[in-house]
């Protein structure tokens, strides 16, 4: 379980304001909100990549802020993460990018690494792309490589920051379905940030909405769809009239 209490962060201007949230184990949680509302920063706080000014984050009972650098390193083995900009390593091939966490974090035998990399590439419809350089891929292909790398370690908690950005509708739906199937099969706890609200709502268990650094909604997907909160209603249904 991920438990966030009164989290605040400022970079000269407030980015997170007193955010409290609980994500139950095995839940696929969708985090939505307009740009620059603090969604990506919140994900980085949970993994300990950023420190909050106030408040606390606890994952499976471990207080993230209390961990030393060495403890944080082993703590992060619990996570897989897809970054908004994909964050593929330019100096490695696609296959090496996907294999990287297996080689560096888990010391898996090389034969198994090759087999898992191939399986991941096929899962994101990129079979045969292993020897290409990331710079030679389209935005959507890079995103899919990012998804493959985030999921290759079979970590129990996975964060996807815009997993479908730059993808065509068909591939986008395939990726959402794939992530949902894997989440169910492996009983992962997933937080998914996406602007593709229509598809996101087809896979999530719960939804949280961030607005100007605050969590303004937290509830089930059904509750989000029928929310009377003007901000949630406008954002979820893509209305042009409203407070946003």
């Amino acid at each position, binding site marked *: 379980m991920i438990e966030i209490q009164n989290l605040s962060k400022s970079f000269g201007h407030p980015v997170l304001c007193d955010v409290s949230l609980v994500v139950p184990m095995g839940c696929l949680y969708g985090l939505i909100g307009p740009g620059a509302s603090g969604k990506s920063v919140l994900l980085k706080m949970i993994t300990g990549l950023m420190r909050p000014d106030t408040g606390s984050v606890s994952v499976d009972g471990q207080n993230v802020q209390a961990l030393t650098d060495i403890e944080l390193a*082993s703590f*992060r*083995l619990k996570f897989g993460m897809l970054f908004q*900009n994909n964050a593929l390593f*330019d100096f490695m091939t696609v296959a090496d990018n996907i294999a990287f966490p297996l080689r*560096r974090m888990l010391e898996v035998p090389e034969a198994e690494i090759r087999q898992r990399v191939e399986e991941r590439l096929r899962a994101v419809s990129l079979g045969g792309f292993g020897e290409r350089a990331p710079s030679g891929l389209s935005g959507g292909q890079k995103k899919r490589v990012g998804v493959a790398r985030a999921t290759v370690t079979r970590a129990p908690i996975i964060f996807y920051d815009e997993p479908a950005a730059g993808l065509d509708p068909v591939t986008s739906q395939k990726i959402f379905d794939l992530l949902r199937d894997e989440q169910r099969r492996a009983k992962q706890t997933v937080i998914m940030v996406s602007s593709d609200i229509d598809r996101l709502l087809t896979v999530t268990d719960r939804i949280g909405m961030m607005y100007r650094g605050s969590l303004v909604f937290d509830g089930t997907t059904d509750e989000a769809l029928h929310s009377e909160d003007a901000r949630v209603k406008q954002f979820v249904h893509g209305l042009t009239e409203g407070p946003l």
Partner: protein
Amino acid sequence: MNGTAALALAPLTRARDALYDLAGTMGQMGIVAARIVLRLVHVDLDGRELLRNLYKMGVKSLPIVVVTALFTGAIMVIQAAPIVQRYGAQGLLGWGAGFGTLREIGPLLTALMISGRVGANNTAELGTMTVTEQIDALRALAIDPVAFLVVPRFIAIVATLFFSTLYADALALFGAAYAGDALIGVEPMTFYNGLVSGLLGIGDVMNGLVKSVIFGIMIGLSSCHFGLSVTGGAPGVGRAVNATVVTSAAGIFVVDYLVSFLLG
């Protein structure tokens, strides 16, 4: 404070701010240095990354070092030619070229070339990795970016500069010997005799090599520091590269002065 007083104090205020910036940069470079030393003490670095960077920084810099060194030797002969010819001091050409090259020109020009090629490139790479979240991705994968990226690059830069200086010294003397023959008729053997006549010693070679290591540390620290502290996307990377080139070049001259003063 009224407007006139503020205007009068503006240069002082700018000087104070510049001093604060300089102190801040020095402090941050000190922190990067401490992190590198800590990893070196624990031999915590990535061997594959080290080899990759040694090849990319060292081997691929050879052409630029060769061209710079050969022409540097030849230029020194052109500058010395009028005096050598006027006083018939052909026998001192080897000593003069050797003294200037080994102690000063060899390490200095090699450092400036490596700073422009390797230091700037290193900052651009690390800066791009920072703004595209690749550094965060490493940390998310439980990998220490300092051990994985910074330490191998730092070692590669220092080693590149040390060996490039050795190579450049030899090539510059070679260039000077043959330029002396071609331009003012000083035979290579006369040049060689001047070089090994006893006026030059191992201390002169070591003087230049000690400088090359210190210059390497300077370039390594500034390029890694500015690369890792990039903010503001692609324009930020450009600013960081500019800062690295300026800081490294200015630092090389300041450090050169101090080391020359201390080592004599």
